[in-house]
């Protein structure tokens, strides 16, 4: 059973989320309302996942995000799932630089139990869970000349799901493709975008995102 520390300043949502995690079969070991309390709770309980609202007291700006980055630095191995009211692609990017085991979801998304469970499991396993809207924002706001044009429509769908952090099987399920076909598409995408192939899910996501944001990925 996943152990979770939840940080959300609105009592209303905190209650709702606790109930939801309960239904999802996770255990909320602490539910707090601001960033300093979150840091203390994470150090005390060492949870599998910290679920964190971006905007929290004390300053009501991105306190949650900064606390999350701090957690990743000081308590390695804690997965972080950020919740936000808005699509903020740069917030997600900040978080992604801290390595695997991170997620960024819109609050509307978590109401769906399936999506929440899925995201929790993925980040707890060291993967990535990005909200489709965040990915869509990355796709639409990029400015560099467009090798994406070279991708077939199917390949673009696969790329979007990859950017969200989905594994090959999940991509195959979502698009009703066989695992072999998915692998073929992915190989074609990496080839067309000039990305180094990678089997590691998170590294793969990072490569895709780095490419989408316009910074050339490091060949690792």
């Amino acid at each position: 059973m996943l152990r979770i520390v939840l940080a959300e300043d609105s009592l209303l949502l905190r209650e709702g989320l606790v109930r939801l995690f309960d239904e999802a079969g996770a255990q909320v070991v602490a539910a707090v309302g601001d960033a300093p309390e979150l840091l203390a709770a994470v150090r005390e309980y060492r949870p599998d996942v910290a679920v964190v609202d971006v905007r929290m007291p004390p300053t009501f700006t991105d306190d949650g995000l900064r606390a999350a980055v701090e957690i990743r630095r000081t308590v390695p191995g804690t997965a972080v799932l950020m919740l936000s009211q808005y699509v903020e692609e740069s917030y997600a990017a900040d978080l992604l630089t801290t390595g695997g085991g991170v997620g960024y979801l819109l609050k509307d998304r978590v109401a769906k139990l399936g999506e929440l469970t899925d995201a929790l499991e993925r980040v707890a396993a060291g993967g990535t869970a990005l909200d489709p809207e965040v990915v869509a924002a990355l796709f639409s706001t990029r400015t560099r000349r467009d090798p994406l044009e070279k991708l077939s429509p199917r390949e673009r769908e696969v790329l979007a799901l990859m950017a969200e952090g989905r594994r090959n099987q999940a991509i195959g399920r979502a698009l009703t493709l066989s695992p072999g076909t998915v692998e073929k598409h992915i190989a074609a995408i990496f080839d067309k975008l000039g990305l180094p192939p990678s089997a590691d899910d998170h590294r793969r996501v990072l490569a895709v995102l780095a490419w989408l944001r316009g910074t050339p990925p490091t060949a690792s």
Partner: protein
Amino acid sequence: MDGTWDDTRTAAPAAPGRQGGFRRQLGYLYSGLPVGIAAFVVVVSGLAFGASLLVLVVGVPVLAGTHGMARVFAGHERRRVENATGRTLPPHHYGVTGPLAPTRWWAALRDPQAWRDTAHALLAFPVRVITFSLTLTWTVGGLGELTYGLWSGPIPRDDGQTGLLDLMFGVSSRAADIGFHTAVGVVLLATTVPMVRGLTAVQAGLARWLLTNEAAALRARTRQLADGRRSAVAAEAQTLRRLERDLHDGPQQRLVRLNMDLEAVARRLDSEDPARARVLVDDMITQSHEALAELRALSRGIAPPVLADRGLRAALAQAAGRSPVPVTLASEIADGQRFASAVENTAYFVASEALANAAKHSGAPRCEVSVRADRDTLHLRIADDGRGGAHIGKGHGLAGLADRVAAVEGTLEITSPPGGPTVVAAAIPLTGVGEDRGPGA
């Protein structure tokens, strides 16, 4: 803001009739001497007294007071000039306005326009002595000469007393004497109108030179407009930020939670557990009511429909009724009396914000809102008998108010000594900003 723009009032009716103009100018020239003597005496003794006491500190208030007196005479002279010439003077500007508190003595002494006023009081005196004498000669003297034949008869003439004509040309005929004097009278009276106009122009020119400072006034006006603009921008940004925050913390959270609950209900219905779903539904109905209420409160905070539909008085009455602190509303504006929408919005915002502040911080048992409008200003006053201690710098609400009011070139005064009472007073000009609906339209 340190400037005032006190010259927007319209001048006396332009281009008065010739006869009326002459009479006014005559009155202006005649009354100039007594006024000039008074101004000269006051200013000279004030300057002498103040300067000699300057070594002791008391000289400063004496000089500042002298400036104050000179300013009163200057204001009087400006009105007299505008009345006599029928034309508006260029604007003037003082660096210091308002009552002469000790803290402002020094600033008052350094105000260039105050020194110009003082200089005018001194210089105008000799000018006025001359213009007064010439006016007297041309009018009373002219009449006297013209009627010389009528009144000179009974006056006994002896050898020692010879007329002007006799002195100059040795002509001592009585008829020639009368003829000469009458001719002088005719000439004087015939040139009275241009003479009076000319003398008026001399005095008015002096006033225009020393009592107006268009460049400084325009600079002050520019500064004031720039301040107003800056305030408007700041107020706008603050309002938007607050609106976003309120939306985020209120309805948005409720709708997210509602969404969560709806999904849960769907799951429970799917799993054939309607009883547990039912519990959630009750909860959700409450959430959706609350979200609606919050949205309503928010939109009312921006611009309540009643303000747009029925005007300021109705909106203030509603705000007063909604306040948790009992409010008495003393309104001297009529129901349905409309002002420019920028004026109405600002006034409403000030009132509702001040009331909210009073409810939150003052602990007051009662508030009073009073509003009245004169020809060009809307006066709004919100007073509570709470614990006071409110300050523009403390919290954001009051600073936001000051910005909002400055944006429409109004003024906001907050007095709130510790222990109360707190009084928020706003004066909002009815024209000059936004569309001009004007009072009573």
